[in-house]
């Protein structure tokens, strides 16, 4: 099970990276990013996973024996933070895309090569 999760995560990362590097449309590049981020999040969760243990929610499990019964909660906490950051970055990227579109009326990445050398 954990191998499925982690391999899916890496597959999504590669897929996202492929999108970032190959797509010419800026929106699609940003989508590539979100896929990339999702992949990382899945990898993170799967790394904290311990076979046969429950989610680290203390309502369900008795707090005194939690340490033996739950999966590592830290990666899950990290993922939450990472999702929030990803949201921020994606939003900012989309703002940039919007402004770039207003500038040149194009979403093609090749029309934004004014700065070089």
């Amino acid at each position, binding site marked *: 099970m954990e191998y499925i999760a982690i391999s899916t995560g890496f597959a999504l*990362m590669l897929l996202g*990276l492929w999108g*970032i*590097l190959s797509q*010419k449309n*800026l929106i699609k*590049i940003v989508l590539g*990013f979100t896929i*990339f*981020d999702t992949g*990382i999040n899945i*990898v*993170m969760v799967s*790394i*904290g996973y311990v076979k046969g243990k429950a989610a680290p929610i203390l309502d369900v499990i008795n707090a005194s024996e939690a340490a033996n019964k739950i999966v590592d909660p*830290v*990666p899950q906490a*990290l993922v939450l*933070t*990472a999702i929030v*950051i990803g949201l*921020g*970055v994606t939003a*900012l*990227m989309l703002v*940039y*895309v919007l*402004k*770039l579109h207003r*500038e*040149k009326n194009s979403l093609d*990445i*090749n029309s*934004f*090569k*004014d*700065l*070089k*050398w």
Partner: protein
Amino acid sequence: MVGPIYIIAVALGLAFVMGLFGKSLKNLSEWAMLAGLGFMTFVSGQWLLEFMNNTRAVETIFTAGFKPPYSINLQMGIQEAFFTFIINVVGLLGGIYLFKDLKQTGPNAMMVFLVFVMSLNVVVMTRDMFNLFVFLEVGSIATAGLILLNNNGNALQAGMKYLIATGIISSILLVGIIYAYYFSGSLNIDDILAANLGASKVTVIAVFLIYVSVLLELKPFPANGWGIDVYTAANPGIGALVSAASASASLFVLYKLASLGGAEWLNYIAIIGGITFVGSNLIGTKQESPNRLLGYSSIGQIGLLTMIVGLSNILGEKMIFIASGILISHYAAKAGLFWLSGIINAKDIKGWAALRKSPFLLFLFGTFVFALIGFPPFPSFFGKWELIMTLATGGHWAWMVTILVGSFIEGIYLFRWLGYAIKLDHDELPDFKIEWNKIFPVWIMAIVLYAVGVYVSPLTEGGMFINYLPLMFVLFLFAIDFLPIYIKNTVSIGGIIWYMFHIYPVLENDLLRLIFAGIFLIGGVLTLMAGYNKKGTRKGFYPMAMMMYAGLIGIIESSSMLEFFFSWELMTAGSYFLIIRGKRSLPHGYSYMLFSIGGAYAILFGFGLAFASGFDTSLAALGDINILPTLAYSLLAVGFMTKTASLGLHIWLPGAHGEAESDVSPMVSAILLKAGVFGLMLLFLYMDRASAGANNLWYVLGWVGALTTLVGNMSAAFQEDAKRLLAYSSIAQLGYILFALSIMTHLGWLAGFTYTINHFLFKAILFLVVGGIVVKLGTHNMYEMGGMIKKMPFSFIAVLISIIVIGGIPPLSGFAGKWLFYNAILEKGWYFQGALIFFSGIVAFLYLYKLIHSIFLGQLKDNHRTVKEISAWILVPSYILIIGIMIFSAFPHWILKPIETMIAPYFSSQALMWDGTKALTSYGYWDGTTIMIVVGTAFVLLLTWLIVLSAKAKKIEQFNIVFAAERPFRPETTHVSYNIYAGYKKALGFVVAPGITIFWNVVSTFVLEVANWFRRIYSGNMQNYALHVVLYIVVFYLIALGGF
């Protein structure tokens, strides 16, 4: 004490509250922001102060009441305090600088600004890996927000590129962090470092991912197109922050994590840094846009610092000193330069010529450029010095070469830029306004550079002995720069005379130094006297002239290698500014500087080898080089020969001396060149005579000297420009000196000293007088002169006496030099070289004849009929020098005898004997006094007879038959002295074919073309830049872990 947590709390709180400000409070928000930044600066500054006074232990801040690894902890030690302090200072100053831009954009921009500075503080202080990631991301987002301050297409594109690249990089970091957590069980940095993840083949993946992402944050060459575009397009105020604050924080992250992987990884870090330092600077050489250039320079400097972090095992405890010296120079200079760029707002570095409108801004610009290159008295000078010395101690030659080559390449573009600002002809200088809030931060940064430089100098070995007195005098002259010339001139002369009395007792028993001190200081007074003849204020001249003299006398006074190098660089800086003052001196000042930096680095390398040989910091270490001695001596000799302008390194001189102002030419010719001679003398006296390498070196240098003489004299004969003729003559004379010294015998050195003193005397006279004539007649071309003998009789006599000395004609001291010279050659048995020297001596007559004939004899030109004698302020020092010549000619033993006694211990045989005023060698004898009396008497008798005879002769008036009814289109071709030696040129011109100039041109074109080729990778396409980042990761992986 205010706790460091308040840095974060205040910034976040303020940013949050600002969003709630109503309309009435909105106007206060920028002041609130500045107050917040001021508070943050205060907190970190107070911690820094405490740590520096050693009154505190490292403070750890636990959040949420738990200890790590259950909570995030921050740390405040001296390093964190230093980094947060410099970040907050540049944040505060940057806030002041951007005051109006931020106000225009509104409180939202200020919030982002506060969050930006705050995030960097946390990045520095945090000891939690994930927290580090979060705040790196916050910093990236804030940067991308601030880039939008410049709301134009370029900034948008740059911001987007930045977001994509940092997005990928931080994702990689995140994966690295999660693996580090997985393997070490903790997110605390100290726990992760302790887990030794580099040891196992499995866990090393975490090390790799973390390192590669942290390094990519530092924008390594060539995967840094996204970073450079930010520097290019963002508001320069933001560029300053990214370059000074963000880069410092990222560097600190690398430093924090340096021990993550182990020694092998440090090696990779050093290599990546080295490649970035050289590569980024190389591409900088092709840049014309100021901000982009600054971007390349920033990345280069950070590359150097990355390299230093990577070399931390080698550098040991010196690493902190070295890194902070270079970092603080980069930080202050780069922030200052970006801010200046924002004030001037030019698209092209040529537009910086506008700086000339404001001498103070020009002063600031010069300060920053010299600080970046590592000139004294800036902290980077001491940092680089320690860096080279420490690397030499460990025998890391490749790293030394990398650093010096990279620094040299940096000099190529920085000094081109500075030259443009000082000198470039510009029809329309772009206008700029100076607002208080924009100029104030720049000033602070300049003051930081000077203050820190003086503060850190005693921390280096030998640095505490550096004499800052002459530098204070230079500063004082800056302060009174608005006064008229005659006051500043008197103050300067007074200063030099006072210093003579001050230094005489120190040098009384050291004749070698006393002679050169005499040349520098007496020469200084005499050449300065000519300045009385100029009018106005002559802005900037006096501080720079005094800086050169300060450097020159510092070279004499120095007892340690550091002091010597400090003064050497000071002299170079001062003389550069003097040389570039000439009307058409822009390219010549530039090439002078490049040769000087190259030479200085050769010397530095040699000093490094000398230090490594015995850990001796004094100059005596030069006598005891046992590591690569031949290389060390050759490098030192080459370094000094850039100043003596020996063949191959001479191409800067003709233009630099020929185009300089009339009283600068004698300073940089008669006086400055002697610094190189002094260096060579010191080196030769210290050199180990027993080693075969030394003798081969002298043999080669002898040939170089002989060929220099030939080329110099022949080139001089073919000149039409009077001052260039004198300049080539200097090259030749210095060739004689090099040759004489390389003979390395008692006689050879006596000849060398005689030539040195003679050249000082006659070249000062010639450049003073001919310079004065050139100004009077308004032309450098000798074929446009003529018949000046009656208009300028005093000048004529002065020139006549000087050329008698150069020609080596009895009874003047030139003959003494020649006599000693040929004796020395015969004794040594260097017949081929001797023949060459003898032949060039004959060639010398050609140019001497041309000089005196074309200027003073022949037909007076129509437009010169009303010309009068040159100023007495030029003639008086010249005639004082003539008195010197007369004394030296009539009583040579007064000076030569003590010199002989001084050098006797260094040479096995004393080949010269004195019998009263008579000098004896095995080849004959010579008596200066007698010759003077005999020739003087004969001269007076003949002159009297001539006057008596010609009393009855009829005077012929001049009339114009020059053109004989022709209408020549180039009238100069009908002048007798134009191309007077055409026949010789046809026969022997190949000797002076500009082969060496062509050689250096090819070298520089090659460097620029390589740069041009490399910079094509910066195609402008953001996807390519993302690809570069990915490829960088892949290649680094293959090299580090893939077994390649």
